[in-house]
């Protein structure tokens, strides 16, 4: 009996689970370390840096007061619709002006771990959260996932979702930018879910047959 596997899916698996990066210095982490070997980042260090968790809502938090009530309502509806399509996931959005200025990657990493947007028990592999943090003042945005989504969504997917929001962010239309990001993630996650259901890898992968090990 031969064993078949797909090279591309194996490569993708290594990309998804093997490339652990420090959210601050982006150094590769060879192993799940308690702190970054290069910059010493840890969640405890960020607790001292950022202090108390700000008030937040489950779906949309606008601490910059840039969104109109109408836009905020529409965005909340879009995020609720996202959750109806993907019941296990939670997409939250936070608009914040960081004072003093800090890397938005560090703030997003700290916030998703401390704010608990979804259930208290959603830790480790059970955490399927998506958090979009936008700092309009510093003109930065970050999109971060929980541990559970690391197996499915690559950092390239997250970067493309942010690129979809770039035109709106550049013109100051934050609501449109957030909608674009939500739409992109909806399409991408739908593709990924359907691929998983079909049990088929992405197109373009090679199939290699490996002879089964000889039985004694």
């Amino acid at each position, binding site marked *: 009996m031969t064993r078949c596997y797909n090279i591309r899916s194996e490569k993708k698996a290594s990309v998804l*689970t093997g490339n*652990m*990066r*420090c*959210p601050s210095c982006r150094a590769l982490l060879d192993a*799940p*370390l*308690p*702190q970054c070997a290069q910059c010493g980042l*840890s*969640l*405890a260090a960020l607790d001292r840096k950022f202090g108390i968790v700000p008030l937040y809502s489950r779906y949309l938090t606008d601490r910059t007061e840039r969104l109109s009530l109408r836009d905020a309502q529409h965005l909340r*509806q879009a995020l*609720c*619709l996202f959750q*109806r*399509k*993907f*019941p*296990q*996931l939670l997409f939250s959005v936070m608009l914040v002006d960081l004072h003093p200025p800090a890397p938005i*990657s560090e703030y*997003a*990493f700290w916030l*998703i*771990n401390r704010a*608990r947007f979804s259930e208290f028990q959603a*830790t*480790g*592999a*059970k*955490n*399927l*959260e998506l958090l979009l943090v936008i700092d309009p003042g510093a*003109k*930065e*945005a*970050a*999109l*971060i*996932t*929980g*541990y*559970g989504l*690391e*197996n*499915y*969504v690559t950092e390239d997917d*997250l970067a493309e979702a942010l*690129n979809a929001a*770039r*035109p709106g*962010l*550049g013109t100051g239309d934050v609501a449109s930018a957030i909608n674009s990001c939500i739409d992109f993630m909806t399409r991408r*996650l*739908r593709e*990924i*879910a*359907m691929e*998983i259901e079909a049990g088929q890898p992405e197109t373009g992968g090679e199939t290699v047959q490996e002879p089964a090990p000889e039985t004694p």
Partner: protein
Amino acid sequence: MNCLRHFLVIVTLSMLFAFCPSSFAQDAASPPSPSSATAVPENPFVQSAGPSKKPTSLKVKLGVAFALLTAAAGTLWISMRVWRAANLFDRQYHFPPPQTAALRLGANRSGGHLATIKFDGV
């Protein structure tokens, strides 16, 4: 709530438009002339047909049809919005839960799997 308000306004205006022509169509009825002495006596065995009804004017019919179409279109529009918000046009998607996760940096919810952008100068 705003959609419901707009819908009610549209329906009310449509109904007013539909019944407006009928008010102008009613002619001032002239009093009947007194019967003369030479009038033919009525046959009591003949059932009177009663006053003949005026046929419904085309304007009234068009108005009623327009009001009904407007009401149906408004109902359909509101329903589409509610159905879309309730995700009736799409299905739900699920992901198999991973067995383990590589907890790191002292974090138990996210390990920093993220992407960032700077959008100044766009």
